[in-house]
């Protein structure tokens, strides 16, 4: 038997491939409830680990003893890793000790399935009850809906947690059959469906009754592993779009597949671009779907199903749609402005606010903190075009070339030379 220190480390090691960390989406005042803690809608990051990822929640598994043998997962039954479990009491106490010292924003509790989905979900619910009722914890809780568990248990968890998630992991039934033969897409989507219905019913209840308890107030999220199976970026981003449309998910997280242990079955597709860069591109595209009004089929299609190592998805989209450019920065509506590479939400609203008073000169445009060297190809300022002689895909790409070698330095392990020659 390990002591608590060792077990916490083992279970952190087991949980770390789950990428979700956000503590956002719900605002809850303590209001002198007699308890401790609150939740802030903007989310708070508390620390950044050596891999640069933020630590917001105590991300931990209840146990890593698992009956499943999913090829991509570090905790699969056939993998030789140290195994440990924490009791609901231990998890609650550690969460409180860390929370009071402001190490964390709350708890992200997940678990391997050691006996049955129901047994696992029961222990998760018990932990949440301890925290919410006995410790009067008002901080953030993100909890995993264990696929296959009794809907009543998921319902109970939903009234105690801020956010819930059910991980899709692999975006197609074939991949799932190959790498996780004991799981089915149907059983994964079932809790997701239940949570979504629960949330929309709850929205009504909250309006009608003053004392209604909120159900998963910060919404639900999911995660997909990328690079373990041969799905294209187009399939992935399409799957995300469906999830956003159908289940109103708050987030889809992408996790670049890292071979853990001794994987035998994993299909090793020839990597088109380094996995971390691919993950980065998917996140960029995901932002375009959620905040920039893009649709998946605008960004990629069957003929060009992959993102590019050298240019971000918005730039690729713009280069392919030169017929829509250039736009006049002093007149284009907000929705068009944010589609220009190098202009984000903040810059676009800055431009819209300022041009109401007086049209912007080119010097002023440069000072709005847009990325001029990228945006200049796609706009005119007071009717004048600053993008050089001709507006052609090759011309823009050549002019931008020096930029990507710099960009790639953000990703250790991705050598500039490696990515070279993989343009679209």
């Amino acid at each position, binding site marked *: 038997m390990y002591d608590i220190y060792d077990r916490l480390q083992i279970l952190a090691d087991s949980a*770390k491939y789950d990428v979700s960390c956000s503590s956002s989406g719900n605002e809850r005042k*303590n209001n002198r409830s007699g308890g401790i803690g609150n939740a802030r809608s903007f989310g708070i990051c*508390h*620390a*950044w680990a050596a891999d640069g*990822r933020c630590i917001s929640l105590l991300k931990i598994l209840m146990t890593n003893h698992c009956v499943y043998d999913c090829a991509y997962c570090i905790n699969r039954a056939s993998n030789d890793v140290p195994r440990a479990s924490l009791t609901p009491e231990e998890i609650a106490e550690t969460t409180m000790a860390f929370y009071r010292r402001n*190490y964390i924003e709350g708890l992200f509790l997940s678990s391997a399935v050691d006996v049955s989905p129901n047994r696992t979900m029961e222990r998760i619910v018990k932990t949440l009850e301890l925290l919410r009722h006995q410790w009067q914890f008002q901080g953030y809780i993100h909890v995993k809906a264990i696929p296959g568990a009794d809907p009543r248990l998921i319902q109970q968890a939903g009234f105690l947690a801020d956010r819930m998630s059910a991980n899709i992991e692999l975006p197609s039934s074939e991949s799932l059959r190959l790498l996780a033969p004991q799981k089915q897409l149907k059983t994964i989507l079932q809790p997701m469906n239940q949570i979504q219905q629960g949330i929309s019913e709850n929205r009504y209840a909250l309006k009608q009754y003053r004392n209604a308890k909120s159900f998963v107030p910060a919404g639900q999220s999911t995660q997909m592993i990328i690079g373990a199976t041969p799905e294209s970026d187009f399939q992935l981003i399409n799957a995300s779009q469906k999830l956003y449309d159908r289940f109103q998910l708050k987030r889809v997280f992408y996790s670049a597949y890292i071979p853990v242990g001794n994987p035998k079955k994993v299909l090793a597709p020839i990597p088109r671009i380094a996995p971390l860069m691919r993950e980065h591109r998917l996140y960029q595209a995901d932002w375009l779907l959620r905040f920039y009004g893009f649709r998946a089929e605008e960004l990629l299609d069957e003929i060009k199903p992959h993102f590019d190592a050298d240019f971000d998805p918005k730039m690729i989209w713009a280069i392919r749609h030169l017929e829509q450019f250039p736009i006049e920065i002093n007149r284009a509506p907000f929705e068009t402005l944010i589609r220009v590479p190098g202009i984000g939400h903040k810059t676009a609203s800055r431009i819209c606010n300022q041009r109401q008073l007086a049209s912007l000169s080119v010097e*002023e445009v440069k000072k709005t903190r847009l990325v001029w060297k990228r945006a200049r190809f796609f706009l005119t300022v007071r009717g004048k075009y600053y993008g050089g002689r001709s507006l052609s895909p090759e011309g823009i790409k050549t002019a931008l070339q020096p930029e990507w070698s710099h960009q790639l330095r953000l*990703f*250790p392990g991705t050598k500039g030379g490696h990515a070279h020659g993989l343009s679209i």
Partner: protein
Amino acid sequence: MDYLYDHSFDGFLTATAIHFQEKRASGIFPETHYQYRLGEETRSIETDPIRAATFYHELEECFSPDVAHKCGRAFLSDHPNKENLLLTYLNFGFRKGRGFDAIFTHPDVEPVQTIAAAVEWEAARFLGLIRFQEIKGILYASFSPDNAILGLLSDHFLDRLHGEPWIIHDTKRNLAILCNGVKWRMVPFKRDFALTLPREELAIQQLWRGYFTHISIPERKNPRLQTQYMPKRYWKDLIEVNSPHFR
């Protein structure tokens, strides 16, 4: 004529009110750091809290609550010339009128926007980066932020740690917020002795350090990204990275 004030926001607002309502100042400076300039007369401004409050209210009325709020934030900046940036900003405002703040790119507006945003950013960052240590039932945290953001943290932690006594100590400015769980107060504060931590506290810190190390994925090690979010100058007060092992 240069106006000299007493470092307080009320003092600054009083000086600014006199500038706009009585006699123009050529600059506003904190009295203790003032370097006398040749041929420049000075006037010591006596802080008038009522006049300051009235003037602040006028800023809200004349421009917008957001502009007044922004002045308050920019004033907390560690920019050595923040008073005169603010003075230029407001001069421009009274010349242009309501809505002047949207002319983001104007050289009189942009610096204030920038330093106010930096203050907001740092305060938001420290909601997460404050680290308490429990000593005799009191939660104590020390930190040394770039800007004077101590006061911006108080309401958040009062709500979060309701009922618990805590201290947040700005070691750079020798100030602290003392909170008894219900109310807080900002006081001058200095600690010139080393903390002796109880064994339980050390055990929890050890647990946290272990967790912090293990949650990182070795294949994705990226120290540059880490320090981008968590600059090294903050590390000495961060439990997870301040032990000799990490330095």
